[in-house]
């Protein structure tokens, strides 16, 4: 077993380093490392066919519970996460093609009469709400572009708005199971529902959002106010002009609402996230049959392949008992004290996620918290919400912590508003610290 453990750790470390270095595309790295795990760890070192079957986890898909009812216990590749993510991506592409996001941004801007301060607050809240249901990359992609467009027309500096939108997108993502990839992994692996997240991390995120709106208002409102000028609102872009096709717009809005309803009710309907993902993907494809090729070409299949490889590599750590050993170590350090466990998980998750991709981190930590909770469901839930808040909010602290941050700062830079590390971290790092501290205290107060 020792050789298998050494290889599993070495492959995991190599994967992490290569992902950070970005020499090769991320999905090639995780898939190659996944293949190495299967061949070297499971095949040559362990000679265990069962470990390969368990990690590839194909059998879970043919189990009825995978789609409707009680989900089967599984390790390795989390196909539910992959199908759900893929389905949501297809739905979001359909919405983007119809002009939904631009329409929503412009409608909101018009409703606050293009007043920069009101716009600033409204876009923060919209960013958080949209990110609860849609991946934060898409949210920021549209929000940052519209913010820059409006900033040029209204002559204000868009950087404070973009920075607060990015933070709120990360915060909104932490509120639901589908808001951020770590939450999908946590929810899917540990069998938590959309409403489980909403009533736990959602509550923490809601309270934090109020505090963050005040925080960003206090630090940025002066900067935005001083650049305000009177504008002729009749010359501003009209929301209706954003709609590329009325039928497409209505259709994609209905599909989005169906997805939201299905997600909110899935704990009572017992429809799994895999079912919801597949369902919204199929109806989006049927509805956009003519433009299917265009929509499918925009779906980021690379991230799905990245996930598949990642799950196999993490499966290597799981099957060789490495993650169990880490769980035992944390348990020993904390002396079984839940306060210490929560503090360790939330701060390590937050700090690590600020610098490295939070998806591999969350995928690695889920089996660890399973080990730490040792079959105690209340403890497992507490640690799951802790991990979720740590990884989701930690990622907001630096320009490289989460995908939304990268996309937002990239769009700003390309449009002539470069955002340096210093400028980004000046507001985001203290904000992260405040929210993580608040989350820890709420978790202590509510669950410990």
């Amino acid at each position, binding site marked *: 077993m020792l050789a298998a453990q050494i290889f599993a750790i070495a492959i995991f470390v190599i994967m992490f380093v290569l992902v*950070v*270095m*970005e020499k090769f595309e991320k999905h090639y790295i995780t898939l190659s490392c996944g293949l190495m795990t299967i061949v070297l760890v499971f095949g040559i070192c362990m000679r265990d066919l069962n470990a390969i079957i368990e990690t590839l986890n194909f059998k879970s898909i043919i189990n009825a519970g995978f789609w409707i009812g009680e989900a089967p216990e599984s390790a390795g590749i989390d196909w539910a996460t992959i199908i759900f993510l893929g389905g949501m991506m297809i739905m979001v592409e359909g919405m983007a093609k119809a002009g939904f996001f631009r329409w929503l941004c412009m409608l909101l801007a018009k409703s606050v009469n293009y007043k920069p301060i009101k716009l600033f607050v409204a876009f923060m809240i919209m960013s958080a709400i949209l990110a609860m249901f849609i991946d934060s*990359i898409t949210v920021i992609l549209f929000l940052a572009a519209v913010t820059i467009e409006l900033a040029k027309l209204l002559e204000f500096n868009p950087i404070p708005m973009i920075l607060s939108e990015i933070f709120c997108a990360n915060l909104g993502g932490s509120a639901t199971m589908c808001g951020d990839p770590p939450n999908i992994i946590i929810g899917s692996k540990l069998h938590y529902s959309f409403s489980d997240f909403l009533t736990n991390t959602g509550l923490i995120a809601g309270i934090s959002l109020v505090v963050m709106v005040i925080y960003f208002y206090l630090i940025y409102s002066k900067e935005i106010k001083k650049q305000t000028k009177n504008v002729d609102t009749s010359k501003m872009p009209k929301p209706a002009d954003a709609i590329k096709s009325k039928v497409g717009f209505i259709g994609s809005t209905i599909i989005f609402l169906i997805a939201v309803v299905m997600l909110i009710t899935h704990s009572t309907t017992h429809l799994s996230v895999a079912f919801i993902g597949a369902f919204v993907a199929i109806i989006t494809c049927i509805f956009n049959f003519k433009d299917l090729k265009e929509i499918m070409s925009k779906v*980021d299949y690379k991230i799905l392949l990245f996930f598949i490889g990642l799950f196999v590599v993490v499966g290597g750590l799981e099957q060789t008992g490495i993650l169990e050993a880490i769980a035992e170590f944390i348990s020993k350090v904390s002396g079984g004290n839940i306060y210490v466990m929560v503090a360790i998980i939330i701060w390590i998750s937050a700090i690590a996620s600020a610098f490295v991709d939070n998806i591999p981190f969350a995928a690695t930590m889920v089996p660890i918290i399973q080990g730490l909770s040792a079959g105690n469901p209340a403890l497992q839930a507490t640690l799951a919400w802790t991990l979720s808040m740590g990884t989701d909010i930690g990622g907001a602290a630096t*320009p*490289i912590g989460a*995908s939304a*941050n*990268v*996309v937002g*700062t*990239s*769009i700003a*830079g*390309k*449009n*002539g*508003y*470069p*955002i*340096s*590390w210093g400028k980004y971290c000046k507001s985001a790092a203290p904000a992260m610290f405040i929210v993580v501290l608040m989350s820890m205290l709420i978790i202590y107060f509510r669950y410990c």
Partner: protein
Amino acid sequence: MEKQIIITIGREFGSAGHIIAETLAKRLGINFYDRKIMDEIAKQNNISDKELAKYDEKPRSRLFSRTVNGYSNSLEDILFEMQSKFITDKADAGESFILVGRCGEKVLGDRKCHISVFVLGDKEEKISRVMDVYSLDRDKAYEMMRSHDKFRKAYHNSRCESKWGDSRTYDLCINSSKLGIETTVDLLEDYVKTRAMGMK
């Protein structure tokens, strides 16, 4: 010059590539672009040129930036994109010019009116030139030369498939130490005029 001609010049630090490029531009009566293009980019985008200068001709930091779906948040990458756009806009508008550095041979490589040149020099000649220009002692001049070339090479090779200073990357490589600045410019002028005659 009547025909559009674009010359991109890569150079080793201390090889006098910059002054050679500037003199050649004057002789040919065409515009000359170097790091000053950042002033225009800064003005166009209402950014401080000092802020931009920090990221000019530098490779991206792999530890402090990431790329997601083709969106890079490296300020070095973003500035490179801005500079590339500035240069291609000038070229598309039919302007003739000389550009120093900034991976010009890659950005403008496939145009028929484009000539790429690399200016190198002998080590001792380059050191003594750096000592003169920057009033440094030999050790400091050598260190300055070594570190600038290291950054230029890393910057170029991180953005181009071809290698910095490799003769296969350029139409012409010339050692300025052998002929001196003026004669090197003479030779380049002749070369450019001969090439221009063959351009449609």
